[in-house]
């Protein structure tokens, strides 16, 4: 029994994505004018979905051809691999960007960006005093560049109450 490798996974993902596109476009309205369905909104995405299916099939076939030199797809050590310091750094970065997205409006730009910077620098091993200073410098710099020079609106959030 041949085992799945990376090329097979890529091929399968392509085909799944293409099927999702083909299913979603079925709800798109049909063209009311022009030559057949060519002017409809589903024509072009469907065309791309077929290209994706062809690519996916070629990738799967290619995966069988190159089976010998490929590492089989294995999920047994998945948990061990993501709990090492490196992958945890990635997960924390993603979590802090999500924190920025969801709390920037509420907490305000200054607070949310300072929290994001401080936690990231702490995690990446910047000494505490430098961390406090660098985070403050970054926030100040960002505020001057974006809010003062380029006049881009940055929410004040909780600092609004303090009149800042």
């Amino acid at each position, binding site marked *: 029994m041949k085992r799945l490798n*990376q090329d097979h*996974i*890529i091929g399968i993902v*392509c085909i799944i*994505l293409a099927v999702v*596109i083909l299913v*979603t476009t079925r709800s*798109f*309205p049909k*063209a009311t004018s*022009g*030559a*057949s369905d*060519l*002017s*409809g*909104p589903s*024509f*072009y*995405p469907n065309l*791309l*979905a077929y*290209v*994706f299916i062809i*690519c*996916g099939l*070629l*990738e799967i076939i*290619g995966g069988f051809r190159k089976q010998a030199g490929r590492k089989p797809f294995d999920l047994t050590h998945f948990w061990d691999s993501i709990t090492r*310091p*490196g*992958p945890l*750094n*990635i997960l924390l*970065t*993603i979590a802090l*960007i*999500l924190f*920025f*997205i969801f709390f*920037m*409006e509420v907490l305000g*730009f200054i607070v949310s*960006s300072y929290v*994001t*910077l401080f936690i*990231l*620098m702490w995690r*990446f*091993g*910047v000494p505490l005093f*430098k961390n406090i200073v*660098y985070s403050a410098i*970054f926030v100040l710099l*960002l505020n001057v*560049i*974006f809010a003062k020079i*380029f006049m*881009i*609106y940055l929410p004040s959030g909780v600092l609004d109450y303090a009149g800042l």
Partner: protein
Amino acid sequence: MEAVLSIFHLSILVPWILAMVLGIFVGGIPGLTATMAVALIVPLTFHMSPIAGLAMILGVSFCAIFAGDIPATFLRIPGTPASGAAILDGYEMTRKGKGSLALALDLTCSVIGGLIGILILIFIAPLLAKFALKFTNFEYFWLAVFGLSMSAVISRGTRIKGVISMTLGLIFATIGIDITTGYPRFSFGSTELMAGIGFIPAMIGLFGLSEVFKYVLLPESFKNPTIKERVQISFKSVGTLLYRFKLLILRSAIIGNVIGALPGAGADIAAWVSYGMAKKVSRRSEEFGTGIEEGIIAPTSANNSALGGTWIPALVFGIPGDTITAIVLGAMMMYGLKPGPLIFQQNAYLVNQIFSVAIVSQIFLLIIGWFGIRMYTYVFKFPRNVVLVGIIIFSVVGSYALRSSLFDVGIVLLFGVIGYFMEICGIPLPPLILGLILGPMIEDNLRVGLVKSDGSFLPFLTRPISLAFFILIVIIFFGDPIIKCSRALFRRRAT
């Protein structure tokens, strides 16, 4: 001559140079584009003479396009979309400790490319603009496909993976309101998705954040400086390289200029196409993407030359070549000028002043750009852990600043994760970005073309310029196998 001397008046010179410094500053910050820099400058020019305003606009755009290459080379984050192609070899050169040489080459090629672009603008502007006007939907479709097929040539790894990446970019480009019918596709009720996916946040995520993820995986390297080398720009070694690759510079600048002159195709597409062409014809094509000089020279000569090209349809016909010249046209009308064929007769003096400003801007770029490289080098000398955090926060806030939208920050994150996994799987990133940029152009021209021809594909092949593009694309995709087969046949016959 009087027009040339008049531009050195202090009322023009001072704001012009200040605008160029601003261009270096803005272009080097990911998320802030050359278009944004120009848009910021225009309101400041309201109360100035037209030539002072146009000098500021020209200066800021040339500087911002160059400065975008600085973070692209040092950090693998393009400062502006036009720097996308310069990442590939520029960043690899930095990793080899040759980042300063890469940027010195970049700067001089930007200046030379810019000069060639302006000379073309001056001498053959009307001819080129007339050629661009012959393009209909059929030709524009093939032009965009030609640009995409270049990305298949550019990409490392297998061609299938290149096509997968390209198609993914084209699929992402279909998200949002369908221009032809007004139907919101794949937006699932979200108003933000209806506006589509902006390629600037996508690019910051794909190239910037995915690279950050790679570094944060290795905590042991956190204390190292981001760039280790000392900045030592040897103009002698740059001069030798420029002489060696003189034909490549000339060819890339001409390609960049021609592409820039086509409405809708700007410095970003010009850089990719010329990179692809350079790779295709080079004897060292296998080494492209590993940090070789040709990989820097081709895109950087092309992107600044394209700026000259974008002014051709803008000045001659009043059609913007890209977003920057679209703002320029608005500004010119604000100054009471009417761009079009008559501007050469009615405002000949001003046109000569514009040409003079464009040429002198290149000399200023050489000086200001050199200081820009030094300034950013000091910034990037900090330990990697501090710079990484800085990149993350600038990417996040820079993408937010584009449209004051947190949705765009989400796009940066999404594309950062996608880019990270694509790199693990060996799928090249550049075709995805090019697909995202060229997607709307391909779809619109394909659909409108098909409707015009009652569903027939024949006009896509029977028109002379379309046919020429089609043949070029076939050569790009199947040139190598055809040559290999014919060589094998020839050898067999000989034996």
